[in-house]
């Protein structure tokens, strides 16, 4: 049986936690709004943006190709196993392509980019914070958002759909390799059914998701780095939180956006 004093204590803790969560959420949304405003008003020098596109996009392409290839291959294996039960192996191309284009492409691309580039973004900005490099920018009357946040946000929004496109294409070819070359599915059926079934709105939904995920990754990772705690431990905690929070938000947002776009 809980005593009245203990109940009050628990309620006070719950209230304090709720207020802290709301304050943090508000701070995060303010951060996003100012980042978007900076992107629109003074997005920074194109060379800063290109550098970030190279870092977030080009340098993630190898890991995306590898992930996409094996995802497509395993989708073909699993899909073939299921479809043969209904005598519908010819639909394998459709199953692989729709799964990739509508769902797995954007989500897995976002998760891989979060792990590879998002963690690096949080760590880079966090180290700049604890070594007073961000303060140095401010003392020069330069807006840190223009140099650190806006280029990463723009690059992430541009790079994610492109990486997602690569993921889809490589994944479909991975599925082709296993389905057609290994399991003997008719190549005409694999691509022919795909051509009939994949519609513009499927591609559109994948691309919209990728753009949203690009915003989420850059936003969360920049925020967690920008407000990193003290010392190496603060940066380490900020980086870990950035990756976990980005990944979870990607999956949550994926559900909501799928329910709207379906």
């Amino acid at each position, binding site marked *: 049986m809980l005593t009245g004093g203990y109940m009050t204590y628990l309620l006070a803790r719950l209230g304090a936690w709720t207020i802290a969560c709301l304050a943090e959420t508000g701070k995060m949304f303010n951060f996003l709004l100012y980042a978007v405003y900076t992107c629109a008003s003074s997005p920074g020098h194109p060379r800063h943006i290109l550098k970030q596109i190279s870092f977030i996009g080009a340098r993630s392409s190898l890991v995306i190709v590898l992930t996409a290839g094996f995802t497509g291959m395993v989708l073909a294996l699993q899909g073939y196993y299921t479809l043969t039960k209904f005598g519908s192996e010819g639909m394998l191309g459709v199953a692989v392509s729709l799964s990739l284009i509508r769902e797995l492409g954007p989500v897995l691309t976002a998760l891989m980019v979060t792990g590879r580039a998002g963690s690096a973004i949080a760590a880079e900005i966090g180290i700049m914070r604890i070594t007073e490099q961000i303060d140095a920018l401010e*003392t020069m009357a330069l807006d840190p958002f223009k140099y650190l946040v806006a280029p990463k946000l723009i690059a992430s929004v541009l790079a994610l759909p492109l990486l997602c496109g690569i993921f889809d294409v490589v994944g479909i070819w991975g599925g082709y390799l296993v389905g057609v070359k290994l399991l003997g599915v008719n190549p005409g059926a694999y691509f022919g059914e795909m051509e009939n079934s994949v519609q513009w709105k499927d591609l559109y939904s994948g691309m919209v998701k990728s753009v949203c995920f690009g915003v989420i990754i850059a936003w969360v990772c920049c925020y967690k780095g920008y407000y990193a705690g003290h010392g190496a431990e603060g940066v380490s905690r900020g980086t870990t939180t950035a990756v976990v929070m980005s990944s979870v938000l990607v999956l949550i947002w994926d559900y909501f956006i799928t329910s709207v776009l379906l």
Partner: protein
Amino acid sequence: MIELRGVTKSFGSQTVLNGLNLKIPAGLITAVIGPSGEGKSVLLKHMIGLMRPDSGNVVVDGEPITCLGRRRMNRVREKFGMLFQNSALFDSLTVFENVAFPLQEKTSLSDAEIARKVRDALLQVGLTGADAKYPDQLSGGMKKRVGLARALLMNPRIILFDEPTTGLDPVICRAIHQMIKQTHARFGYTAVVVSHEIPEIFDISDRVAVLYRGSIIQCGTQEEIQNSSHPAVRQFISGSLEGPIQPI
């Protein structure tokens, strides 16, 4: 002129600045001395708007800066340069790029003109042949020089020095102090120097302010400070273990 009026700043339950009042006269070198952990760096950060006071006001050239928005604050910061305790150089940029950064971002000078100005600034702080090095390849003294060159480059009217000689050997310390004195004589900026180097800092300062327990307990010329009757000031400048300042 910079003026702090009744500035109070707390972090959690710890009050660092407690109704602090201080006037920094224009064109002079003012040293801020005091025991470690008394909030000298916090004081500097209030002067340039990197921190905002819980109460009180900071006035720069007659303009209160405490409630300024980002854009107007940046206009005030145009007047400032700052040399950080750990130099705060951009670690992914070379020495040349570090010094050139504010010029590249804030002026429309040609690359050749920027290169000439950067070389001049590095020459002024006695640093040559290190243009292509990265900050982690430099000694502590060299980093301070690069930081000073970067702070000087935009010809600021006010420069804040946050412990410019901490962790450096006595020879480099003296060289940095001389450099501050020479550049001050040449450019005539207002300087605020936070330092622990007693009595060396007296040689370059026009005025000295002593920060203790969140307030300026004495501010005056170096003679006034050295002849002070305040027990905390006397203990601090003599380095004695006996007195109101608790060593640990």
